[in-house]
C-alpha cells in the first residue's frame, strides 16, 4: 500500500475515534455540572481540557470555564484542531483523499457525517440538545467502525485503520483515567474506600464500562477495581490491554518489515499482560499512566517513520 494512503487511513480512523472520545468526555462534563459543590463543579469542567491537553489554548482567548464556552471550544470550534467539528472534518478529508482504497460505505458514512455536522448550530446544543448531539457523534463513530469492520478487505487498509482506532482509544482511556482519578480521589488513603457514587459511575459510563463493572465485580465501586477494569481487563473493549491486543495483532499483520515499531508494540502488550494492579498502585497510578502515554506517543512516532512516510 502507498505510504501516503496508509497515513491517511491511519489518521482517518484516529480522528473518528477522537471525535467519539471527545463526545464521551463532554457528555460526562455536562452531566457532572449538575452535581456537587461549586469546587467540584469547576474541577469537573476543567477535566475535559486537561484530558485533551488543551487548557493552554483554551485560556488564550477565554477567562472563565463555563459549560457553554467549553462546548463551543471542544465541540464546534473550527480553529481547535481537536474539536469534534475539526475531527469529523479531517476524518472526512482524509477519507476523501483515499476513497478508492476504502469501501464506498466507509466513505459515505464519513461524508454524510460531515455534511450533517456542518448543519449543527450553537443553539442546537443547549440542554437536552447537547446530549442528543453527543449520542449522535457516538452513533456515527460506532457506525463507521461497524461499516469498516463489515465491509473492508482484511489487508493493509484494515490494519492501519485498526492501528489508528486503537492507538487513539488507548491514549484516551489512559488520559481519562489519569485525570479523573486525580480529581475524584481526595487522598491516597481513600483507595479502597467507597467514593462518590455519581462521580465514579459517570467515569465508568464515559467509557461504556458501567454495566460491565456491575456484571464483572457485582460490588460497590472501588477505585482499584475501576483501574483494573480500564487498564488490565482484556475483555473490556476500551481497556488498555484490549486496545493493545488489537494493536499488536494489526502490527503483526502489516506486510512491511520494521523492527522498531513492531517490537515496541509487542513489549507494551506483554507489559499489560503480566501487570498486577496492586503493584501499579504501589508504584503510583499516575506515574504508571504517564509512562503509558509516553510509550504510546513513541509508538505512534515509530509507526509514522516506518510506514507512513514523510508526513
Amino acid at each position, binding site marked *: *500500500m502507498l*505510504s501516503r494512503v496508509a497515513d491517511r487511513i491511519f489518521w482517518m480512523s484516529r480522528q473518528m475515534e477522537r471525535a467519539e472520545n471527545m463526545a464521551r468526555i463532554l457528555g460526562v462534563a455536562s452531566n457532572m455540572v449538575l452535581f456537587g459543590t461549586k469546587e467540584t463543579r469547576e474541577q469537573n469542567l476543567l477535566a475535559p481540557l486537561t484530558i485533551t491537553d488543551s487548557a493552554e489554548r483554551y485560556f488564550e482567548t477565554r477567562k472563565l470555564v463555563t459549560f457553554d464556552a467549553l462546548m463551543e471550544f471542544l465541540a464546534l470550534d473550527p480553529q481547535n484542531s481537536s474539536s469534534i467539528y475539526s475531527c469529523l472534518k479531517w476524518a472526512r478529508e482524509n477519507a476523501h483523499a483515499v476513497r478508492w482504497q476504502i469501501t464506498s460505505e466507509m466513505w459515505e458514512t464519513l461524508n454524510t457525517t460531515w455534511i450533517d455536522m456542518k448543519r449543527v448550530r450553537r443553539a442546537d446544543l443547549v440542554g437536552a440538545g447537547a446530549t442528543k448531539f453527543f449520542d449522535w457523534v457516538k452513533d456515527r463513530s460506532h457506525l463507521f467502525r461497524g461499516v469498516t469492520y463489515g465491509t473492508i478487505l482484511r489487508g493493509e487498509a484494515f490494519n492501519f485503520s485498526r492501528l489508528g482506532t486503537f492507538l487513539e482509544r488507548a491514549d484516551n482511556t489512559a488520559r481519562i483515567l489519569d485525570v479523573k482519578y486525580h480529581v475524584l480521589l481526595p487522598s491516597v488513603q481513600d483507595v479502597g474506600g467507597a467514593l462518590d457514587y455519581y462521580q465514579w459511575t459517570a467515569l465508568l459510563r464515559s467509557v461504556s464500562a458501567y454495566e460491565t463493572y456491575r456484571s464483572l465485580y457485582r460490588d460497590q465501586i472501588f477505585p482499584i477495581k475501576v483501574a483494573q477494569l480500564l487498564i488490565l481487563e482484556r475483555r473490556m473493549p476500551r481497556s488498555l490491554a484490549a486496545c493493545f491486543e488489537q494493536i499488536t495483532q494489526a502490527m503483526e499483520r502489516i506486510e512491511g518489515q520494521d523492527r522498531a515499531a513492531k517490537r515496541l508494540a509487542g513489549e507494551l502488550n506483554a507489559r499489560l499482560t503480566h501487570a498486577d494492579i496492586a503493584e501499579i498502585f504501589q508504584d503510583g497510578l499516575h506515574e504508571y499512566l504517564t509512562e503509558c502515554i509516553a510509550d504510546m506517543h513513541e509508538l505512534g512516532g515509530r509507526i509514522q517513520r516506518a510506514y507512513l512516510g514523510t508526513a
Partner: protein
Amino acid sequence: MERRQLFDEMRTSAGEVREHFRPIAEWLKETPAKRVAEKRREADLLFHRVGITFAVYGDAAGAERLIPFDTIPRILPKSEWDEIDRGLKQRIEALNRFLDDIYHGQEIIKAGVMPPEQVLGNPGFQKEMVGVDLPNRIYSSVAGIDLVRHSDGKYYVLEDNLRTPSGVSYMIENRKMMMRLFPELFERQTVLPVEHYPSMLLETLRAAAPPRTRDPVVVVLTPGQYNSAYFEHAFLAQQMGVELVEGADLFVRDNSVYMRTTSGRQRVDVIYRRIDDAFLDPKAFRKDSMLGVPDLFAAYRAGNVALANAVGTGVADDKSTYPYVPEMIRFYLKQEPILQNVPTWMCRNPKDLAHVLENLATLVVKEVQGSGGYGMLVGPTASKSEITSFRKLLKAKPENYIAQPTLALSTCPTFVKRGVAPRHVDLRPYVLSGKEVKLVPGGLTRVALKEGSLVVNSSQGGGTKDTWVVE
C-alpha cells in the same frame, strides 16, 4: 449547414414521438409529476452522499458542487450508434497515425496536406517527442470526442479531446443512478450496457506497457483531491483495482519509475496520467510544477514506463488542427470521413478573418487552446460590449481563434422548473485505443439547462443525462 427547425431527439418535426423514445414518452405520461420530483430529489441526495461532486474553478476554495443530473435519458437507436461507432474509430485511427507521423517521418507535411507551421509551430507540438517510439504507436489511448446533432439530423464532430478527457465516470454513475431510481424503465427497453468501461480501460492501459513487461503495474496519476475531476480519478482507479498516485508518491531511480509503499518501493510500468504535459516532470517541462515527478520524462524516453495518453497529443486536438482531420482520414486511411466536421473559419487566414469579423453576431468564436467553455463567444446570445471586446482580441491575435456557425444543437426533453421542456444536448463518447480501437455503446450527454443556451459545459451550468443505446 443552414439553420432550419431544431432537431428534437424525442419528436419528429410533425410532433410525433420517435419509435425509440416511445416507452419513455409513455412512462412520462403515466407517471405522476410528484413521484418523478421525489425521485429527482432522491437522486440529488444520493449523488451528494456518494460525493460525486465537481469542483468549480474560481469558486470559493474547495467548493464542491453537484453536476445537475437530469432523469430523462437521451436515447439513440442502435443503428444510429453503429454509424457513430464506425466514424469515431476511423477518426481516432487517423489521429493516432497523424501523431505517429509528425513525431517521425512527417509525411503529411512533405505531401503538402498540412502547412509545416501549423504542426511544428503549434504550442502542443513537443519537440522532445520527435523520434520517440511508442508501443503499438498509440498516442491517444483514451479520447473523448464531442458530437453534436444539427437540425439536418446528422451528427457532426465538434471537438476532439486527446489529452486528458474527463466525464466518463458520470457516464457510468448516471447509468447506475437510473437503474436504481427507475428499474422499471429498463424492463421496457433493452439498453446496451456501459458499466464495463473500466475493465476495457485497464486492458487498454496494459496494452500500452513497455514490451518487456509481463504483468504490467498500472497506476492512475492525479493532481490530488482538490482537482476538479478528482472524483473521476479515484473512481477509475478503484474500478480498475489499481493505485491512485500523486506525484509525490512516485520517484525515478536509474531511469525507472517506482512508488513508495508501506513495504518499500514498487516498480510502475504504465501511468494513466490525468495531469497535463507541462506539469509531468519539473526537470523536463515546467520547473514550478509541484504535481509531477522529477526525471519521469527521461524514464519515459528510455522506454521504461508508458504514459497514457502520450506526451505531445495536444497538437492533434487543438482547434486549429481540427479543420485538417478529414484530410488526415483521406491521407492516412485512404477513406472518406464517416463523421463530418463543423465548417470552420481559421482566423489566421486573412480572408477567413474578414468574414468572421463581419459576421461576429451570428458565429461562435473559440480560442484554439481553450477548453471547458472558457474563452469563447457565442454571437447570437452575446451582448454588444462582449462582441466589441472579442473583436479587439481577434484583431490583436487572429491566429489564436477559429470561428464556426452557431450550431442548432438538437434538443432533448428535460426536467425544468415548470415541467418537461426541450433543452440542447451534445454527446461525448469515449474511444479506447489499445490492441484494437473500442468503445462502450453510449457516452456522456451534456445538457444546457438554461432555456435557449447552447453551452453544455458543467463549468458553465450544464447538466448531464444518462445516454441509452437501445436495440
